[in-house]
């Protein structure tokens, strides 16, 4: 029993690193989540009924200490993926491996996994219990895992100080007395309280004003270094994702379109959808405004996704083959893309003409 363990070492990974830095912290294999739409009585009788293919066979890895950014439009499955990773909903199929151990296996029971993975939600108000003081909200997680009350409270106050909220002024306050930015700092402190190794940030800065967003992004970067965290950063804001991520995953209609190092993906997008997404960003240059929209129409509904490549209905380079063949996620040079153009011998007319960016 140590006596002098300083409460400053909040980030010390108590779960312990197992596989070393080369082993991914999180590996996701063929993750699937289908939601049943509410069936009518007759549909229940004759069977069938529609399903929403929210996440439809997603594979990715998060390396230790990196930030993986996830971008995509509404209905692409990025938030469902986050909730699956948190085990807030049960996957229809697939496997999540955390530092070499399958989640839910005897080696890594769900409860222990949940301590090591935490989440920050978009809505700073509804993610704090209005009846609990700030310090009680932060201390709740550690208490669940058996940390004595006094210790959990003092840990909460240290974390408050760490996220830039003076404990003396804020610890005893209630959520409605704080501004949006302050509440989001509290949510970050709450996520860190159980000393997680992976933090999932689901649109965590999207509801904040720009000036406050910058403060919170800086804070997130500092905390990551200080506590040796790994981030899964979900956002629809491409600028923010580019700024904060080491690697980026682009999702479209429940599938991964492309993954790769952030700079490479933003400078040399391989998938036509990524390219369209990037050129939809407002230009910020009054002399070179956007003259033509990259895509027409809205993203299709994930209830009845198009066959073949999901993007072929909006893709400027789509050919007949795209409506028939589902592209697989092909890896080259540390990048992966699911597009027939980049799949040699796929039958797409441009498939062989492609030269990969180094």
């Amino acid at each position, binding site marked *: *029993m*140590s*006596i*002098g*363990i*300083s*409460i400053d070492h909040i980030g*010390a990974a*108590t*779960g312990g690193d197992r596989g070393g830095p080369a082993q991914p912290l999180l590996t996701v294999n063929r993750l699937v989540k289908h939601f049943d739409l509410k069936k009518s009585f007759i549909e229940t009788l004759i069977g069938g009924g529609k399903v929403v293919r929210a996440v439809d066979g997603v594979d990715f890895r998060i390396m230790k200490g990196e930030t993986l950014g996830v971008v995509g439009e509404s209905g692409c499955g990025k938030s469902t993926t986050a909730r699956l990773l*948190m*085990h*807030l909903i049960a996957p229809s199929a697939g496997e999540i491996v955390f530092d070499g151990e399958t989640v839910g296996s005897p080696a890594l029971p*769900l*409860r*222990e996994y*949940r*301590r090591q*993975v*935490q*989440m920050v*939600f978009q*809505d700073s108000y*509804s*993610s*704090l*219990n*209005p*009846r*609990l*003081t700030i*310090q009680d*909200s932060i201390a*709740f*997680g550690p208490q*669940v*895992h058996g940390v*004595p009350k*006094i*210790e959990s409270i*003092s*840990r909460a*106050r*240290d974390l408050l100080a760490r996220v830039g909220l003076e*404990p*003396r*002024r804020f*610890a*005893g*306050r*209630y959520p*409605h*007395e704080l501004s949006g930015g302050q509440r989001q700092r509290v949510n970050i402190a*709450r996520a860190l309280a*159980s000393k997680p190794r992976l933090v999932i940030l689901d649109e965590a800065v999207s509801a904040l004003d720009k000036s406050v967003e910058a403060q919170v992004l800086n804070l997130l970067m500092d905390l990551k270094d200080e506590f040796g965290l790994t981030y899964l950063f979900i956002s629809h804001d491409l600028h923010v994702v580019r700024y904060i991520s080491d690697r980026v995953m682009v999702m479209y209609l429940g599938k991964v379109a492309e993954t790769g190092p952030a700079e490479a993906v933003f400078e040399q997008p391989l998938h036509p959808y990524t390219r369209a997404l990037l050129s939809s960003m407002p230009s910020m240059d009054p002399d070179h405004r956007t003259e033509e929209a990259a895509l027409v129409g809205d993203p299709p509904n994930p209830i009845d996704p198009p066959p073949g490549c999901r993007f072929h209905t909006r893709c400027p380079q789509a050919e007949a083959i795209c409506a028939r063949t589902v592209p697989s996620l092909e890896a080259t040079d540390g990048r992966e893309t699911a597009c027939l153009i980049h799949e040699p011998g796929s039958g797409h007319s441009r498939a062989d003409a492609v030269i990969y960016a180094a």
Partner: protein
Amino acid sequence: MNTNVSLTLPAPTAKVEAIERSPGFWSGVIAKLMRDPVALGACAVLFALILIAVFAHQLVPSDPYQTSMIKRLKPIGFDGFPLGTDELGRDMLSRLMLGTRLSLFMGITPVLIAFVIGSGIGILAGYAGGLINTLIMRTIDILYAFPSVLLAIALSGALGAGIGNALLSLTIVFIPQIARVAESVTTQVRGRDYVEAARASGARPFTIVRVHVLGNVLGPIFVFATSLIAVSMILASGLSFLGLGVRPPEPEWGLMLNTLRTAIYTQPWVAALPGVMIFITSISFNLLSDSLRSAMDVKS
């Protein structure tokens, strides 16, 4: 998690450091009620009624059971009987005061019991969701399908007259109503991100309900329950009126209203007095419940 499973004492500075505390939720509600003249008025009336109920035997000016064939149905202000006498010559003021006891008791007790049971059922159904929710709520719906007056009378009739049975039947009438409110509030709260966050932290369902759900649902359920007290009093009076609740000669407002109805043409003012008491009490409960509702709105 080995050597660090520490009973380490936190740095003493962190422990003794005083923090600024905001007033808690309930003290905020009370502070708001104190600024609300309607709530204060309703509270004053109810407080007075409770005092009268508690000290009824000490306060009554004359014996509420003392009958007199000579002094039957005297008007308000009759010598020695400030509120007149009833059909058996008993002092109305004394009987109304003593009646406060039974009437308040019949109004509050069934709601209180139903609040405990109904909240339990509703929160269970709301938090569990799925099949458990369907089973519980459809059963509740069957009870709910009957008009409450009819249900109370039917149950009382089946169980037989008497205070105990009247209480039981009223409780059964209110449980489904409270359970439905509890279920819908709980379903709302369950979907909030802070409950998700608690689940994600690995907390067990019981802990989540205790820490995160109860505090947020009991308030609204309580407001609804206070509004039922008035209904309960009126139903209880109704049962007594039909001879299914309190039995004579015990004074209870509903029963008094019943026995005095024959005197409605000879002494209408005296005959109306128990009704006036029921009216004042139930409207006070309703006003208090309204004020409570607006005081509990955090965002205002």
